[in-house]
Protein backbone atom coordinates (compact mmCIF):
# COMPACT_ATOMS: atom_id res chain seq x y z
CA UNK A 1 0.00 0.00 0.00
CA UNK A 2 1.35 3.35 -1.10
CA UNK A 3 -0.32 5.29 1.72
CA UNK A 4 -1.09 3.98 5.19
CA UNK A 5 -4.68 3.88 6.49
CA UNK A 6 -3.67 6.74 8.77
CA UNK A 7 -2.55 8.78 5.78
CA UNK A 8 -5.79 8.11 3.94
CA UNK A 9 -7.78 9.08 6.99
CA UNK A 10 -5.81 12.31 7.25
CA UNK A 11 -6.36 13.08 3.56
CA UNK A 12 -10.07 12.41 3.82
CA UNK A 13 -10.28 14.62 6.91
CA UNK A 14 -8.36 17.35 5.09
CA UNK A 15 -10.72 17.18 2.12
CA UNK A 16 -13.80 17.36 4.36
CA UNK A 17 -12.35 20.27 6.30
CA UNK A 18 -11.45 22.19 3.13
CA UNK A 19 -14.87 21.55 1.58
CA UNK A 20 -16.71 22.70 4.73
CA UNK A 21 -14.56 25.81 5.02
CA UNK A 22 -14.99 26.68 1.35
CA UNK A 23 -18.77 26.39 1.54
CA UNK A 24 -19.01 28.36 4.78
CA UNK A 25 -16.72 31.07 3.44
CA UNK A 26 -18.70 31.24 0.22
CA UNK A 27 -21.73 32.18 2.29
CA UNK A 28 -19.86 34.49 4.67
CA UNK A 29 -17.28 35.96 2.33
CA UNK A 30 -19.57 36.90 -0.54
CA UNK A 31 -21.56 39.54 1.37
CA UNK A 32 -18.36 40.87 2.96
CA UNK A 33 -16.68 41.15 -0.46
CA UNK A 34 -19.79 42.74 -1.96
CA UNK A 35 -19.98 45.24 0.84
CA UNK A 36 -16.27 46.09 0.63
CA UNK A 37 -16.43 46.44 -3.14
CA UNK A 38 -19.30 48.87 -3.11
CA UNK A 39 -18.96 51.06 -0.04
CA UNK A 40 -16.95 54.18 0.44
CA UNK A 41 -17.11 54.74 4.20
CA UNK A 42 -14.14 55.31 6.51
CA UNK A 43 -14.52 51.81 7.93
CA UNK A 44 -13.72 50.25 4.59
CA UNK A 45 -9.98 50.58 5.28
CA UNK A 46 -10.02 49.00 8.76
CA UNK A 47 -12.31 46.19 7.58
CA UNK A 48 -10.06 45.43 4.62
CA UNK A 49 -7.08 45.34 6.99
CA UNK A 50 -8.81 42.93 9.39
CA UNK A 51 -9.83 40.66 6.52
CA UNK A 52 -6.24 40.64 5.25
CA UNK A 53 -4.65 39.98 8.68
CA UNK A 54 -4.43 36.18 8.25
CA UNK A 55 -2.18 36.80 5.24
CA UNK A 56 0.56 38.31 7.37
CA UNK A 57 0.03 36.96 10.90
CA UNK A 58 2.00 33.88 11.94
CA UNK A 59 -0.60 31.09 12.07
CA UNK A 60 0.44 30.44 15.66
CA UNK A 61 -0.64 33.96 16.65
CA UNK A 62 -4.01 33.50 15.03
CA UNK A 63 -4.31 30.03 16.53
CA UNK A 64 -3.37 31.31 19.98
CA UNK A 65 -6.08 33.97 20.01
CA UNK A 66 -8.65 31.59 18.59
CA UNK A 67 -7.75 29.06 21.25
CA UNK A 68 -8.33 31.65 23.95
CA UNK A 69 -11.58 32.87 22.36
CA UNK A 70 -13.01 29.39 21.89
CA UNK A 71 -11.83 28.08 25.25
CA UNK A 72 -14.16 27.85 28.26
CA UNK A 73 -13.28 31.40 29.38
CA UNK A 74 -13.32 32.95 25.90
CA UNK A 75 -16.10 34.95 24.26
CA UNK A 76 -16.87 32.27 21.70
CA UNK A 77 -16.47 29.54 24.31
CA UNK A 78 -19.00 31.17 26.66
CA UNK A 79 -21.39 31.51 23.76
CA UNK A 80 -21.06 27.90 22.62
CA UNK A 81 -21.47 26.71 26.19
CA UNK A 82 -24.65 28.78 26.51
CA UNK A 83 -25.89 26.96 23.43
CA UNK A 84 -25.05 23.64 25.08
CA UNK A 85 -22.14 22.89 22.77
CA UNK A 86 -18.95 21.66 24.38
CA UNK A 87 -15.83 23.68 23.83
CA UNK A 88 -14.71 23.85 20.22
CA UNK A 89 -10.94 23.43 20.54
CA UNK A 90 -9.69 19.98 19.69
CA UNK A 91 -12.84 19.16 17.67
CA UNK A 92 -13.46 19.05 13.94
CA UNK A 93 -15.80 22.03 14.11
CA UNK A 94 -13.28 23.98 16.12
CA UNK A 95 -10.89 23.37 13.27
CA UNK A 96 -13.53 24.54 10.79
CA UNK A 97 -14.08 27.79 12.70
CA UNK A 98 -10.34 28.43 12.90
CA UNK A 99 -9.82 27.66 9.22
CA UNK A 100 -12.67 29.97 8.24
CA UNK A 101 -10.81 32.81 9.96
CA UNK A 102 -7.50 31.70 8.52
CA UNK A 103 -8.69 31.41 4.90
CA UNK A 104 -11.02 34.42 4.93
CA UNK A 105 -8.84 36.68 2.74
CA UNK A 106 -8.51 33.96 0.11
CA UNK A 107 -12.27 34.05 -0.40
CA UNK A 108 -12.90 37.75 0.11
CA UNK A 109 -10.09 39.29 -1.92
CA UNK A 110 -10.71 37.64 -5.32
CA UNK A 111 -14.45 38.20 -4.92
CA UNK A 112 -13.95 41.82 -3.97
CA UNK A 113 -11.70 42.36 -7.00
CA UNK A 114 -14.29 40.70 -9.25
CA UNK A 115 -17.14 42.80 -7.89
CA UNK A 116 -15.07 45.97 -8.16
CA UNK A 117 -14.16 45.34 -11.77
CA UNK A 118 -17.83 44.73 -12.51
CA UNK A 119 -18.62 48.33 -11.58
CA UNK A 120 -21.96 49.91 -10.99
CA UNK A 121 -23.27 49.79 -14.54
CA UNK A 122 -24.58 46.20 -14.81
CA UNK A 123 -26.62 46.72 -11.66
CA UNK A 124 -28.01 49.99 -12.92
CA UNK A 125 -28.98 48.29 -16.16
CA UNK A 126 -30.65 45.50 -14.18
CA UNK A 127 -32.55 48.06 -12.11
CA UNK A 128 -33.89 49.75 -15.23
CA UNK A 129 -34.99 46.29 -16.37
CA UNK A 130 -37.12 45.89 -13.22
CA UNK A 131 -34.72 43.76 -11.17
CA UNK A 132 -34.67 44.49 -7.43
CA UNK A 133 -31.19 44.87 -5.90
CA UNK A 134 -31.23 41.29 -4.54
CA UNK A 135 -32.53 39.93 -7.82
CA UNK A 136 -29.84 41.88 -9.70
CA UNK A 137 -27.17 40.47 -7.40
CA UNK A 138 -28.08 36.87 -8.16
CA UNK A 139 -29.08 37.28 -11.80
CA UNK A 140 -26.34 39.66 -12.92
CA UNK A 141 -23.51 40.16 -10.42
CA UNK A 142 -22.98 36.49 -9.54
CA UNK A 143 -22.97 35.12 -13.10
CA UNK A 144 -20.77 37.97 -14.35
CA UNK A 145 -18.34 37.52 -11.45
CA UNK A 146 -18.12 33.77 -12.01
CA UNK A 147 -14.37 33.74 -12.75
CA UNK A 148 -13.87 35.52 -9.44
CA UNK A 149 -15.96 32.91 -7.64
CA UNK A 150 -13.98 30.07 -9.19
CA UNK A 151 -10.66 31.65 -8.24
CA UNK A 152 -11.84 32.41 -4.72
CA UNK A 153 -13.18 28.90 -4.11
CA UNK A 154 -10.14 27.13 -5.51
CA UNK A 155 -7.73 29.29 -3.54
CA UNK A 156 -9.74 28.90 -0.34
CA UNK A 157 -9.89 25.14 -0.72
CA UNK A 158 -6.21 24.82 -1.53
CA UNK A 159 -5.15 27.18 1.21
CA UNK A 160 -7.19 25.29 3.81
CA UNK A 161 -5.61 22.03 2.65
CA UNK A 162 -2.21 23.61 3.21
CA UNK A 163 -2.67 24.98 6.70
CA UNK A 164 -0.61 23.67 9.60
CA UNK A 165 0.10 26.13 12.39
CA UNK A 166 -3.48 27.03 13.20
CA UNK A 167 -4.42 23.35 13.20
CA UNK A 168 -1.73 22.51 15.71
CA UNK A 169 -2.82 25.30 18.04
CA UNK A 170 -6.56 24.66 17.83
CA UNK A 171 -6.92 21.04 16.90
CA UNK A 172 -3.92 19.29 18.19
CA UNK A 173 -3.32 15.93 16.68
CA UNK A 174 -6.30 13.60 17.16
CA UNK A 175 -6.52 10.84 14.52
CA UNK A 176 -9.68 11.14 12.43
CA UNK A 177 -10.74 14.29 14.25
CA UNK A 178 -8.09 16.93 13.78
CA UNK A 179 -5.10 15.15 12.30
CA UNK A 180 -5.04 16.60 8.79
CA UNK A 181 -2.52 15.74 6.09
CA UNK A 182 -0.01 18.44 6.97
CA UNK A 183 0.04 17.29 10.62
CA UNK A 184 0.31 13.68 9.51
CA UNK A 185 3.43 14.53 7.52
CA UNK A 186 4.86 16.28 10.57
CA UNK A 187 4.17 13.13 12.60
CA UNK A 188 5.94 10.94 10.03
CA UNK A 189 8.99 13.22 10.14
CA UNK A 190 8.95 13.27 13.94
CA UNK A 191 8.91 9.47 13.87
CA UNK A 192 11.76 9.55 11.31
CA UNK A 193 9.50 7.67 8.86
CA UNK A 194 10.85 9.59 5.89
CA UNK A 195 9.47 7.20 3.29
CA UNK A 196 5.88 7.72 4.43
CA UNK A 197 6.49 11.45 4.80
CA UNK A 198 7.79 11.51 1.21
CA UNK A 199 4.74 9.72 -0.12
CA UNK A 200 2.21 11.94 1.58
CA UNK A 201 4.25 15.06 0.84
CA UNK A 202 4.38 14.09 -2.84
CA UNK A 203 0.60 13.69 -2.92
CA UNK A 204 0.23 17.17 -1.40
CA UNK A 205 2.78 18.65 -3.77
CA UNK A 206 1.09 17.20 -6.86
CA UNK A 207 -2.36 18.20 -5.64
CA UNK A 208 -1.28 21.78 -5.04
CA UNK A 209 0.56 22.01 -8.34
CA UNK A 210 -2.34 20.71 -10.40
CA UNK A 211 -4.88 22.88 -8.63
CA UNK A 212 -2.81 25.97 -9.38
CA UNK A 213 -2.08 24.76 -12.90
CA UNK A 214 -5.79 24.37 -13.55
CA UNK A 215 -6.45 27.79 -12.08
CA UNK A 216 -3.86 29.65 -14.12
CA UNK A 217 -4.18 27.89 -17.47
CA UNK A 218 -7.87 27.92 -18.08
CA UNK A 219 -8.83 28.21 -21.74
CA UNK A 220 -8.15 31.93 -21.82
CA UNK A 221 -7.58 34.51 -19.17
CA UNK A 222 -11.00 34.89 -17.65
CA UNK A 223 -11.51 38.59 -17.51
CA UNK A 224 -14.52 39.87 -15.74
CA UNK A 225 -16.86 40.84 -18.54
CA UNK A 226 -19.44 43.21 -17.22
CA UNK A 227 -21.62 44.58 -19.89
CA UNK A 228 -20.71 45.17 -23.48
Amino acid at each position, binding site marked *: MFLTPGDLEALWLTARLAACVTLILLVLGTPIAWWLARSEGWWKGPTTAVVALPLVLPPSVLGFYLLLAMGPQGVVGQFTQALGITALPFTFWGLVVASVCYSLPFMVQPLQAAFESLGERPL*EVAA*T*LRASPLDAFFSVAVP*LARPGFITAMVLTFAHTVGEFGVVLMIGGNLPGVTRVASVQIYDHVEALDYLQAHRLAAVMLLFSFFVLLALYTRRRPQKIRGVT
Partner: protein
Amino acid sequence: MSGIQAKFQLNWPGFSLDVDLALPARGITALFGPSGSGKTTLLRCIAGLEKTAQGRLLVDGEVWQDNTRCVPVHQRPLGYVFQEASLFAHLTVLGNLRYGTRRVADKGSVALDSAIELLGIKTLLDRLPDKLSGGERQRVAIARALALSPRLLLMDEPLAALDYPRKQEIMPYLQQLHRALDIPVLYVSHAADEVARLADYLVVIDNGRVRAQGSLAETLTRLDFPLPLGDDVGTILDATVGDIDVAWHLARVDFPGGSLWTPDPALPVGCAVRVRVLARDVSLATMPPEQSSIQNVLCGRVDAIADDAHPGLLLVRIQAGPSQLLARITRRAAATLHINIGQTVWMQVKTVALMA
Protein backbone atom coordinates in the same frame (compact mmCIF):
# COMPACT_ATOMS: atom_id res chain seq x y z
CA MET B 1 -51.78 66.64 -15.66
CA SER B 2 -50.16 64.68 -18.46
CA GLY B 3 -46.56 64.90 -19.49
CA ILE B 4 -43.54 65.02 -17.27
CA GLN B 5 -42.86 67.49 -14.53
CA ALA B 6 -39.33 67.30 -13.24
CA LYS B 7 -37.75 69.50 -10.62
CA PHE B 8 -34.34 68.46 -9.35
CA GLN B 9 -31.52 69.84 -7.27
CA LEU B 10 -28.20 68.18 -6.88
CA ASN B 11 -24.99 69.51 -5.37
CA TRP B 12 -21.66 67.91 -6.03
CA PRO B 13 -18.22 69.42 -5.53
CA GLY B 14 -17.69 71.56 -8.62
CA PHE B 15 -21.11 70.88 -10.15
CA SER B 16 -24.67 71.63 -9.31
CA LEU B 17 -27.89 70.79 -11.08
CA ASP B 18 -30.98 72.90 -10.62
CA VAL B 19 -33.78 72.36 -13.12
CA ASP B 20 -37.53 72.72 -13.24
CA LEU B 21 -39.10 71.32 -16.39
CA ALA B 22 -42.49 70.55 -17.83
CA LEU B 23 -42.16 68.23 -20.79
CA PRO B 24 -44.69 67.02 -23.35
CA ALA B 25 -46.48 63.70 -22.94
CA ARG B 26 -45.42 62.38 -26.31
CA GLY B 27 -42.75 62.86 -28.90
CA ILE B 28 -39.01 63.09 -28.52
CA THR B 29 -37.63 65.71 -26.19
CA ALA B 30 -33.96 66.35 -26.72
CA LEU B 31 -31.86 67.28 -23.72
CA PHE B 32 -29.17 69.17 -25.54
CA GLY B 33 -25.97 70.69 -24.25
CA PRO B 34 -22.19 70.43 -24.22
CA SER B 35 -20.32 67.64 -22.42
CA GLY B 36 -20.40 68.08 -18.67
CA SER B 37 -23.50 70.28 -18.80
CA GLY B 38 -25.49 67.90 -16.63
CA LYS B 39 -27.87 66.46 -19.22
CA THR B 40 -26.95 62.85 -18.46
CA THR B 41 -27.17 63.58 -14.75
CA LEU B 42 -30.67 64.96 -15.26
CA LEU B 43 -31.65 61.82 -17.16
CA ARG B 44 -30.26 59.68 -14.33
CA CYS B 45 -32.25 61.74 -11.81
CA ILE B 46 -35.41 61.06 -13.77
CA ALA B 47 -34.60 57.34 -13.85
CA GLY B 48 -33.94 57.37 -10.10
CA LEU B 49 -30.30 56.36 -10.53
CA GLU B 50 -28.95 59.42 -8.70
CA LYS B 51 -29.66 58.60 -5.10
CA THR B 52 -28.67 62.00 -3.73
CA ALA B 53 -30.90 64.09 -5.99
CA GLN B 54 -33.59 66.10 -4.24
CA GLY B 55 -36.70 66.95 -6.16
CA ARG B 56 -40.10 66.15 -7.49
CA LEU B 57 -40.97 64.03 -10.47
CA LEU B 58 -44.41 63.46 -11.90
CA VAL B 59 -44.98 61.29 -14.94
CA ASP B 60 -48.51 61.33 -16.34
CA GLY B 61 -49.76 62.67 -13.02
CA GLU B 62 -48.13 59.86 -11.07
CA VAL B 63 -45.60 60.79 -8.40
CA TRP B 64 -42.28 59.03 -8.91
CA GLN B 65 -40.40 61.18 -6.46
CA ASP B 66 -41.12 63.95 -3.98
CA ASN B 67 -40.00 64.98 -0.53
CA THR B 68 -41.56 62.03 1.21
CA ARG B 69 -41.07 59.14 -1.18
CA CYS B 70 -38.95 57.97 -4.04
CA VAL B 71 -40.05 55.05 -6.17
CA PRO B 72 -36.99 52.78 -6.58
CA VAL B 73 -35.61 52.48 -10.09
CA HIS B 74 -36.80 48.92 -10.57
CA GLN B 75 -40.39 49.88 -9.83
CA ARG B 76 -40.54 52.74 -12.33
CA PRO B 77 -42.19 51.83 -15.65
CA LEU B 78 -39.38 53.23 -17.76
CA GLY B 79 -36.95 52.07 -20.39
CA TYR B 80 -33.34 53.26 -20.31
CA VAL B 81 -30.81 53.08 -23.11
CA PHE B 82 -27.28 53.75 -21.91
CA GLN B 83 -24.54 55.35 -23.95
CA GLU B 84 -22.72 52.04 -24.25
CA ALA B 85 -25.17 49.30 -25.14
CA SER B 86 -24.55 47.63 -21.77
CA LEU B 87 -25.83 44.21 -22.76
CA PHE B 88 -25.31 41.48 -20.18
CA ALA B 89 -22.31 39.52 -21.43
CA HIS B 90 -23.51 36.24 -19.91
CA LEU B 91 -26.83 36.24 -21.76
CA THR B 92 -27.69 35.85 -25.44
CA VAL B 93 -29.53 38.59 -27.28
CA LEU B 94 -32.83 36.89 -26.52
CA GLY B 95 -31.75 36.39 -22.90
CA ASN B 96 -31.02 40.10 -22.66
CA LEU B 97 -34.37 40.98 -24.19
CA ARG B 98 -36.24 38.65 -21.86
CA TYR B 99 -34.34 39.68 -18.74
CA GLY B 100 -36.67 42.65 -18.42
CA THR B 101 -39.86 41.20 -19.88
CA ARG B 102 -39.77 38.28 -17.42
CA ARG B 103 -39.83 40.81 -14.58
CA VAL B 104 -42.68 43.06 -15.68
CA ALA B 105 -46.11 42.32 -14.33
CA ASP B 106 -47.69 42.36 -17.78
CA LYS B 107 -46.25 39.25 -19.40
CA GLY B 108 -47.53 40.07 -22.88
CA SER B 109 -44.98 39.25 -25.54
CA VAL B 110 -46.47 41.68 -28.06
CA ALA B 111 -44.04 44.41 -27.06
CA LEU B 112 -41.11 42.01 -27.28
CA ASP B 113 -42.07 40.81 -30.75
CA SER B 114 -42.68 44.29 -32.05
CA ALA B 115 -39.43 45.56 -30.52
CA ILE B 116 -37.54 42.74 -32.28
CA GLU B 117 -39.35 43.66 -35.48
CA LEU B 118 -38.85 47.41 -35.13
CA LEU B 119 -35.10 47.18 -34.52
CA GLY B 120 -34.56 44.42 -37.09
CA ILE B 121 -32.74 42.01 -34.76
CA LYS B 122 -34.63 38.81 -35.48
CA THR B 123 -31.55 37.10 -36.92
CA LEU B 124 -29.38 37.98 -33.91
CA LEU B 125 -31.43 36.41 -31.12
CA ASP B 126 -29.18 33.42 -30.42
CA ARG B 127 -25.91 35.34 -30.43
CA LEU B 128 -23.86 36.47 -27.48
CA PRO B 129 -23.24 40.20 -27.14
CA ASP B 130 -19.51 39.96 -27.86
CA LYS B 131 -20.35 38.47 -31.26
CA LEU B 132 -22.29 41.58 -32.29
CA SER B 133 -21.12 44.78 -33.93
CA GLY B 134 -21.41 48.05 -32.01
CA GLY B 135 -24.45 49.08 -34.01
CA GLU B 136 -26.17 45.73 -33.52
CA ARG B 137 -25.51 45.88 -29.79
CA GLN B 138 -27.09 49.29 -29.50
CA ARG B 139 -30.13 48.14 -31.50
CA VAL B 140 -30.53 45.22 -29.09
CA ALA B 141 -30.21 47.61 -26.15
CA ILE B 142 -32.96 49.82 -27.57
CA ALA B 143 -35.17 46.79 -28.21
CA ARG B 144 -34.52 45.56 -24.67
CA ALA B 145 -35.81 48.84 -23.27
CA LEU B 146 -38.81 48.93 -25.60
CA ALA B 147 -39.80 45.34 -24.87
CA LEU B 148 -40.80 46.44 -21.37
CA SER B 149 -43.63 48.59 -22.81
CA PRO B 150 -42.26 51.53 -20.83
CA ARG B 151 -44.35 54.59 -20.10
CA LEU B 152 -41.26 56.74 -20.52
CA LEU B 153 -38.19 56.01 -22.63
CA LEU B 154 -34.87 57.53 -21.58
CA MET B 155 -31.99 57.49 -24.05
CA ASP B 156 -28.54 58.67 -23.04
CA GLU B 157 -26.59 59.52 -26.20
CA PRO B 158 -27.29 56.13 -27.75
CA LEU B 159 -25.19 57.00 -30.79
CA ALA B 160 -22.27 58.78 -29.16
CA ALA B 161 -20.10 55.69 -28.76
CA LEU B 162 -20.54 54.68 -32.42
CA ASP B 163 -18.57 55.64 -35.50
CA TYR B 164 -20.21 57.46 -38.40
CA PRO B 165 -21.34 54.43 -40.45
CA ARG B 166 -22.84 52.82 -37.34
CA LYS B 167 -24.67 56.05 -36.54
CA GLN B 168 -26.10 56.01 -40.07
CA GLU B 169 -27.10 52.37 -39.52
CA ILE B 170 -29.12 53.16 -36.40
CA MET B 171 -30.62 56.51 -37.33
CA PRO B 172 -33.40 55.04 -39.52
CA TYR B 173 -34.47 52.83 -36.61
CA LEU B 174 -34.64 55.84 -34.32
CA GLN B 175 -36.67 57.75 -36.89
CA GLN B 176 -38.95 54.77 -37.22
CA LEU B 177 -39.25 54.74 -33.44
CA HIS B 178 -40.15 58.40 -33.50
CA ARG B 179 -43.09 57.68 -35.75
CA ALA B 180 -44.20 54.48 -34.01
CA LEU B 181 -43.98 55.38 -30.34
CA ASP B 182 -46.80 56.91 -28.41
CA ILE B 183 -44.82 57.57 -25.23
CA PRO B 184 -42.57 60.43 -24.20
CA VAL B 185 -38.92 59.93 -25.05
CA LEU B 186 -36.11 61.91 -23.45
CA TYR B 187 -33.07 61.87 -25.70
CA VAL B 188 -29.77 63.19 -24.40
CA SER B 189 -27.43 64.43 -27.09
CA HIS B 190 -24.71 66.91 -27.81
CA ALA B 191 -24.95 66.39 -31.57
CA ALA B 192 -27.00 69.06 -33.37
CA ASP B 193 -27.56 66.72 -36.29
CA GLU B 194 -29.26 64.04 -34.18
CA VAL B 195 -31.40 66.65 -32.48
CA ALA B 196 -32.44 68.15 -35.82
CA ARG B 197 -33.46 64.75 -37.13
CA LEU B 198 -35.26 63.38 -34.13
CA ALA B 199 -36.46 65.96 -31.66
CA ASP B 200 -39.88 67.56 -31.40
CA TYR B 201 -39.12 69.49 -28.26
CA LEU B 202 -35.80 70.89 -27.19
CA VAL B 203 -34.35 71.56 -23.76
CA VAL B 204 -30.99 73.29 -23.78
CA ILE B 205 -28.91 72.58 -20.70
CA ASP B 206 -25.72 74.29 -19.76
CA ASN B 207 -23.79 74.11 -16.52
CA GLY B 208 -26.61 72.34 -14.70
CA ARG B 209 -29.26 74.91 -15.64
CA VAL B 210 -31.96 74.99 -18.30
CA ARG B 211 -31.04 77.74 -20.75
CA ALA B 212 -33.96 77.42 -23.15
CA GLN B 213 -36.83 75.10 -23.87
CA GLY B 214 -39.66 74.89 -26.37
CA SER B 215 -40.67 73.24 -29.59
CA LEU B 216 -37.69 72.44 -31.77
CA ALA B 217 -38.33 75.01 -34.53
CA GLU B 218 -39.14 77.70 -31.98
CA THR B 219 -36.09 77.09 -29.82
CA LEU B 220 -33.71 76.86 -32.76
CA THR B 221 -34.77 80.28 -34.03
CA ARG B 222 -34.64 82.04 -30.67
CA LEU B 223 -32.24 84.91 -31.01
CA ASP B 224 -32.29 86.13 -27.40
CA PHE B 225 -30.44 82.97 -26.52
CA PRO B 226 -28.60 81.77 -29.62
CA LEU B 227 -27.70 78.12 -29.17
CA PRO B 228 -23.99 77.37 -29.13
CA LEU B 229 -24.26 75.53 -32.43
CA GLY B 230 -21.59 77.22 -34.54
CA ASP B 231 -22.06 76.20 -38.17
CA ASP B 232 -25.14 74.19 -37.21
CA VAL B 233 -27.27 77.25 -36.46
CA GLY B 234 -30.35 76.94 -38.59
CA THR B 235 -34.01 76.08 -38.81
CA ILE B 236 -36.08 72.96 -38.98
CA LEU B 237 -39.16 73.01 -41.20
CA ASP B 238 -41.77 70.29 -41.16
CA ALA B 239 -42.71 69.83 -44.79
CA THR B 240 -44.29 67.43 -47.26
CA VAL B 241 -43.09 66.30 -50.66
CA GLY B 242 -45.26 68.34 -53.03
CA ASP B 243 -43.99 67.51 -56.48
CA ILE B 244 -41.29 65.55 -58.23
CA ASP B 245 -39.52 66.79 -61.33
CA VAL B 246 -38.43 63.54 -62.91
CA ALA B 247 -36.50 65.16 -65.77
CA TRP B 248 -34.23 67.16 -63.46
CA HIS B 249 -34.19 64.70 -60.55
CA LEU B 250 -35.59 67.24 -58.18
CA ALA B 251 -38.34 67.22 -55.59
CA ARG B 252 -40.32 70.14 -54.26
CA VAL B 253 -41.02 70.19 -50.55
CA ASP B 254 -43.80 72.43 -49.31
CA PHE B 255 -43.92 73.98 -45.89
CA PRO B 256 -46.26 76.60 -44.45
CA GLY B 257 -44.92 79.80 -45.96
CA GLY B 258 -43.14 78.53 -49.06
CA SER B 259 -41.54 75.66 -50.88
CA LEU B 260 -38.02 74.53 -51.71
CA TRP B 261 -36.46 72.33 -54.39
CA THR B 262 -34.07 69.62 -53.36
CA PRO B 263 -32.35 66.72 -55.12
CA ASP B 264 -34.97 63.98 -55.44
CA PRO B 265 -34.87 61.90 -52.25
CA ALA B 266 -36.91 59.11 -53.88
CA LEU B 267 -39.84 59.69 -51.57
CA PRO B 268 -43.46 59.64 -52.75
CA VAL B 269 -45.52 62.81 -53.13
CA GLY B 270 -47.31 63.54 -49.89
CA CYS B 271 -44.61 62.04 -47.71
CA ALA B 272 -43.83 64.05 -44.56
CA VAL B 273 -40.24 65.19 -44.39
CA ARG B 274 -38.19 67.28 -42.04
CA VAL B 275 -36.09 69.92 -43.73
CA ARG B 276 -33.12 71.61 -42.20
CA VAL B 277 -31.92 74.95 -43.50
CA LEU B 278 -28.68 76.20 -41.99
CA ALA B 279 -28.27 79.93 -41.41
CA ARG B 280 -24.94 79.96 -43.27
CA ASP B 281 -26.69 78.61 -46.39
CA VAL B 282 -29.19 81.48 -46.53
CA SER B 283 -28.22 84.75 -48.19
CA LEU B 284 -30.41 87.85 -48.35
CA ALA B 285 -31.34 90.28 -51.11
CA THR B 286 -33.54 93.36 -50.95
CA MET B 287 -34.80 92.79 -54.51
CA PRO B 288 -35.91 89.56 -56.19
CA PRO B 289 -32.65 88.00 -57.36
CA GLU B 290 -32.28 86.98 -61.01
CA GLN B 291 -29.79 84.94 -62.95
CA SER B 292 -28.45 82.92 -60.03
CA SER B 293 -27.54 79.28 -59.67
CA ILE B 294 -29.42 79.39 -56.42
CA GLN B 295 -32.97 78.73 -57.48
CA ASN B 296 -34.58 78.39 -54.07
CA VAL B 297 -35.80 81.88 -53.34
CA LEU B 298 -38.22 82.65 -50.55
CA CYS B 299 -39.77 85.97 -49.70
CA GLY B 300 -40.27 87.11 -46.12
CA ARG B 301 -40.08 89.90 -43.63
CA VAL B 302 -37.19 90.56 -41.28
CA ASP B 303 -38.41 89.71 -37.82
CA ALA B 304 -35.33 90.05 -35.64
CA ILE B 305 -31.60 90.73 -35.89
CA ALA B 306 -29.03 89.57 -33.36
CA ASP B 307 -25.29 89.43 -32.87
CA ASP B 308 -23.66 86.19 -33.86
CA ALA B 309 -20.76 84.57 -32.05
CA HIS B 310 -18.26 86.34 -34.34
CA PRO B 311 -18.28 90.17 -34.17
CA GLY B 312 -18.31 90.41 -37.97
CA LEU B 313 -21.49 88.36 -38.33
CA LEU B 314 -25.18 88.82 -37.64
CA LEU B 315 -28.06 86.40 -37.42
CA VAL B 316 -31.23 87.59 -39.12
CA ARG B 317 -34.56 85.90 -38.50
CA ILE B 318 -37.05 86.09 -41.34
CA GLN B 319 -40.74 85.37 -41.06
CA ALA B 320 -42.12 83.60 -44.14
CA GLY B 321 -45.79 82.96 -43.54
CA PRO B 322 -45.99 81.06 -40.25
CA SER B 323 -42.45 79.69 -40.66
CA GLN B 324 -39.19 81.24 -39.61
CA LEU B 325 -35.76 80.96 -41.16
CA LEU B 326 -32.37 82.19 -40.06
CA ALA B 327 -29.74 83.83 -42.23
CA ARG B 328 -26.15 84.43 -41.24
CA ILE B 329 -24.78 87.52 -42.97
CA THR B 330 -21.89 89.87 -42.33
CA ARG B 331 -22.45 93.02 -40.37
CA ARG B 332 -21.18 95.03 -43.34
CA ALA B 333 -23.69 93.40 -45.71
CA ALA B 334 -26.50 94.29 -43.33
CA ALA B 335 -25.33 97.90 -43.24
CA THR B 336 -24.84 98.15 -47.02
CA LEU B 337 -28.25 96.67 -47.79
CA HIS B 338 -29.94 98.59 -44.95
CA ILE B 339 -31.49 95.45 -43.51
CA ASN B 340 -33.91 96.48 -40.81
CA ILE B 341 -36.68 94.86 -38.85
CA GLY B 342 -39.95 94.84 -40.79
CA GLN B 343 -38.26 94.98 -44.17
CA THR B 344 -39.23 92.61 -46.96
CA VAL B 345 -36.29 90.47 -48.14
CA TRP B 346 -35.65 87.62 -50.52
CA MET B 347 -33.80 84.62 -49.16
CA GLN B 348 -31.59 82.57 -51.42
CA VAL B 349 -31.29 79.12 -49.94
CA LYS B 350 -28.24 77.30 -51.16
CA THR B 351 -28.61 73.92 -49.49
CA VAL B 352 -31.61 72.12 -48.14
CA ALA B 353 -31.03 69.03 -46.03
CA LEU B 354 -33.78 66.47 -45.86
CA MET B 355 -33.76 64.86 -42.43
CA ALA B 356 -36.38 62.14 -42.86
